[in-house]
């Protein structure tokens, strides 16, 4: 009887001790696993809010002003005489501002046709895992551009509305892995005035773009914009661009080759003339410098 009691005592003690030790082994498990209760948003699918010419699915962070200096030099076929285009440059200066996590606005001025542009971009879906599981990021983008060249024929009746261009775009994309992101950009460009009756005022197009990181700070980007047939005059081509993003502390340098001269939608989607086959390609860059304007509340 005595041994039986002792046996029972040891068993119970061992069980209790085991329970204690186990609790000590992983104290945090006492709080339960609440990882599933949080939403983890995918971030930095692209290094900036542009792939090359196209808007990427990323927005400028809330409270941040992004000053962009963009250049497209002349085409490479200019040869050594133009040092492969470097003698010629068109410029766009832009300011992008992140208003909230989802909303960004921007203004720009292009030297090409002395054009001012402004845009609004709103993310209505953000790729996330966890509590809220969303496979893609989706944004709506709308921009207006005003060309301010002097009227070619000042004597005839010229309407202000003839200077206006509009772009509406849906951006759908996904950061597929840490290094690879892809997006589709169905777009419509509206021109109030076109040069000839053969051209259409509305130009539907589909942009496709991707980013692959080569290292933590260098990525390669590519984008192609397919324009629906019979919308443009025959001399216009689809835009194809390939480039690198290089990140240093506060700057992102985007260096690229593109057959588009313009840096705004209306131009690079509907008025690209360069041909990759004939070296009608421009070297260009976007430099992005960010400034923190205010601290968003979390």
């Amino acid at each position, binding site marked *: 009887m005595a041994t039986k*009691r002792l046996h029972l005592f040891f068993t119970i003690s061992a069980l209790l001790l085991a329970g*204690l030790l186990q609790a000590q082994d992983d104290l945090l498990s006492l709080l339960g696993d609440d990882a599933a209760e949080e939403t983890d948003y995918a971030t930095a699918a692209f290094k900036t809010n542009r792939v090359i010419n196209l808007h990427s699915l990323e927005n400028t962070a*809330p409270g941040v002003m992004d000053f962009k200096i963009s250049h497209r030099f002349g085409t490479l076929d200019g040869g050594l005489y133009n040092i492969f285009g470097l003698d010629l440059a068109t410029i766009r200066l832009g300011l992008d501002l992140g208003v909230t996590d989802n909303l960004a606005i921007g203004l720009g001025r292009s030297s090409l046709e002395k054009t001012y542009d402004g845009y609004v971009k709103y993310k209505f879906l953000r790729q996330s895992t966890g509590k809220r599981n969303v496979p893609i990021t989706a944004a709506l983008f709308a921009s207006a551009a005003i060309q301010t060249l002097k009227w070619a024929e000042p004597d005839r009746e010229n309407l202000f509305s003839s200077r206006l261009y509009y772009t509406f775009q849906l951006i759908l994309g996904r950061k597929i892995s840490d290094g690879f992101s892809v997006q589709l950009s169905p777009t419509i460009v509206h021109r109030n005035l076109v040069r000839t009756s053969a051209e259409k005022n509305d130009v539907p197009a589909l942009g496709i773009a991707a980013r692959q990181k080569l290292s933590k700070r260098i990525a390669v980007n590519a984008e192609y914009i397919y324009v629906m047939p019979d919308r443009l005059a025959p001399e216009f081509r689809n835009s194809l661009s390939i480039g690198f993003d290089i990140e240093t502390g506060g700057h992102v340098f985007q260096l690229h080759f593109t057959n588009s001269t313009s840096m705004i939608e209306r131009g690079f989607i509907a008025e690209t003339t360069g041909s990759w086959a004939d070296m009608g390609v421009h070297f260009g860059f976007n430099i992005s410098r*960010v400034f923190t304007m205010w601290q968003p509340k979390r």
Partner: protein
Amino acid sequence: MNKIAFFILTAVLCAGSVQAQKHFTREGKISFYSDAPMEKIEAHNQQATAVVDFATGAIEFAALIKAFQFEKALMQEHFNENYMESTKYPKATFKGQIIEPGKIDLKKDGTYSVKVKGALTMRDVTKDVDTEATFVVSKGVVSATSAFKVAVADYGISIPKVVAEKIAKIVDVKVDVKLAALAK
């Protein structure tokens, strides 16, 4: 048989009182400060979880890397993307031990300084951390603060030359938690 019942009862009660000595938080503050010649950087996480078992002296912390908030959005992006790789390594954890937990009397208001020894894990790398912690018991509320230094290279984080003047090689970490008794 009475004796056995007594033993079991004692054991269960003992276990019960040990349980009541566990305290926790889900809103622990963990901050770090990088003081480099060209830039001062600080980041704050206010959602760290922690459990302290005052009976055994065992301490555990966990903090989500993505929950560290920076003054500049780009810094936060780089912290997550380039340095901590937070999608691959989402959490930092600390498992440690108060060397003399008996010094802390939860029933008596006061300030208790103790030594803490443990292991900090970030990016799958575990390194020993020795530090001091101050526990304050005031009207039944237990809070604790601690500070220690972390060498970023210890955790396999490399700082590129271009930003070498902007990021400190040794970062100060501060911990500030208010603990509540764990009801379980």
